[in-house]
């Protein structure tokens, strides 16, 4: 068992507990152990609070990293925004000793020192690098045969690549391979690289962007849109209703977080995975409750 400090962030535990449930249910089957971080705060978010004051943002992020350092383990994130904040903090404080000193002056007020000993790992890379695609495939009891999953990487999983160190941002493969490991078929639609637009404060930009993206997913006849970030998920679940209304076009492409798909493929029934709370329910997944693969002789 490889151990990681689990940094669930704000959105998943508060708004999407089904995603947290799926993570906690699936990782032990891949020999990955999550240790909870007591007293963790918001990462803080790389959009709003970072806009207020970058130095305070770094100080709070460094405090969260200190919690993992105290446990002597690397930290795993399940949200691309948390990954952005914490990875950027890790790298910036490694590159800029003066900034690290400034952050540590603040941390001294609460009796902490940031050392830079715990790395930040996005959960997609943890399952890829620590378990591997083969082990994921072997954990699947209900392969998602024939399911077409459009891939949405979002932005902060990949970029900036010299900080994220996840994959080639111009031609990534990690999500495609993770989807294939479940027996499903990944689809790279023509707008795969687009952003979800959540951070933008001018609504027209994300509306038009989501409309184009959902259109290209629809053209590929994908069954669902596979997500790895809860912020993108919110945009494409809640936001898809808005897009349908504004453009009078109903693409009806349910968004699904990867670890809920993994849970389904590992045999957790559809009804236990919280899909009924989504605006666009991925009912196409219900068929897989019945399609257990014959166990190997």
């Amino acid at each position: 068992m490889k151990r990681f400090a689990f940094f669930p962030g704000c959105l998943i535990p508060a708004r999407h507990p089904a995603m947290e449930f799926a993570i906690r249910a699936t990782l032990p089957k891949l020999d990955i152990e999550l240790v909870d971080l007591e007293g963790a705060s918001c990462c803080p978010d790389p959009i709003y609070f970072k806009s207020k004051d970058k130095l305070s943002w770094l100080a709070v992020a460094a405090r969260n990293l200190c919690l993992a350092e105290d446990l002597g383990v690397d930290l795993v994130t399940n949200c691309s925004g948390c990954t952005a904040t914490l990875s950027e903090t890790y790298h910036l404080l490694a590159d800029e000793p003066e900034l690290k000193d400034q952050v540590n002056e603040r941390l001294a007020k609460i009796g902490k020192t940031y050392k830079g000993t715990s790395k930040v790992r996005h959960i997609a890379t943890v399952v890829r690098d620590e378990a591997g695609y083969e082990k994921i495939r072997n954990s699947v009891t209900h392969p998602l045969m024939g399911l077409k999953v459009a891939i949405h990487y979002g932005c902060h999983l990949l970029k900036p690549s010299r900080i994220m160190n996840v994959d080639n941002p111009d031609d990534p493969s990690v999500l495609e391979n993770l989807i294939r490991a479940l027996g499903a078929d990944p689809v790279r639609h023509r707008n795969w690289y687009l952003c979800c637009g959540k951070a933008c404060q001018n609504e027209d930009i994300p509306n038009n962007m989501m409309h184009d993206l959902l259109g290209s997913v629809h053209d590929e006849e994908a069954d669902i849109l596979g997500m790895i970030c809860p912020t993108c998920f919110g945009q494409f679940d809640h936001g898809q209703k808005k897009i349908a209304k504004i453009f009078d076009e109903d693409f009806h492409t349910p968004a699904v977080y990867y670890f809920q798909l993994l849970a389904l493929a590992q045999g957790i029934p559809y009804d236990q995975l919280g899909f009924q709370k989504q605006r666009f329910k991925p009912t196409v997944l219900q068929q897989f409750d019945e399609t257990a693969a014959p166990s190997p002789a």
Partner: protein
Amino acid sequence: MSKRHDENDIVRVDFSFKRELAETVEGDLANFCYQCGACVGDCPATTYSEAFNPREIMLKVLYGLEDELLGSESVIWECTNCYACHERCPQQVKPVEIIISLKNMLAARGDAPDAVNKVIHTFETTGRTVPYSPAIDKQRAKFDLPPLGEVPMDEIRALLEPVVEGDAP
């Protein structure tokens, strides 16, 4: 007839604005921009908004055009924070970081948009960006998940305050 340029045709660089920007974390990187435009092609905000162009924002930063960057017509909040410009910039200027530094300057002037201030306020008072409610723990219990943990707000508040002389080491 004088050969001197009309004074009004000359852009005067506002150094005080640039010095203030350089005080923010990574705000000093702006000076390395050589206006190549690598940041433009992949920018989703540019694709969907005629007003937004990261190269133009960087040019205004180089000149220190405070009114255009921080005034009421500013387009910086159209940035989608996608980090494509950070990825592309051959000078490692990190245009998105410069834009966030400009937002830091707006926040210091009390001029951030209400929607942004609302999330900031939620974080500063609760340590989270999604405010706690008992309904959250009720939903979590349905998945056998424990209630949300406490955030030690005394620690968070201490970190948000600048260090002042006399703070205990």
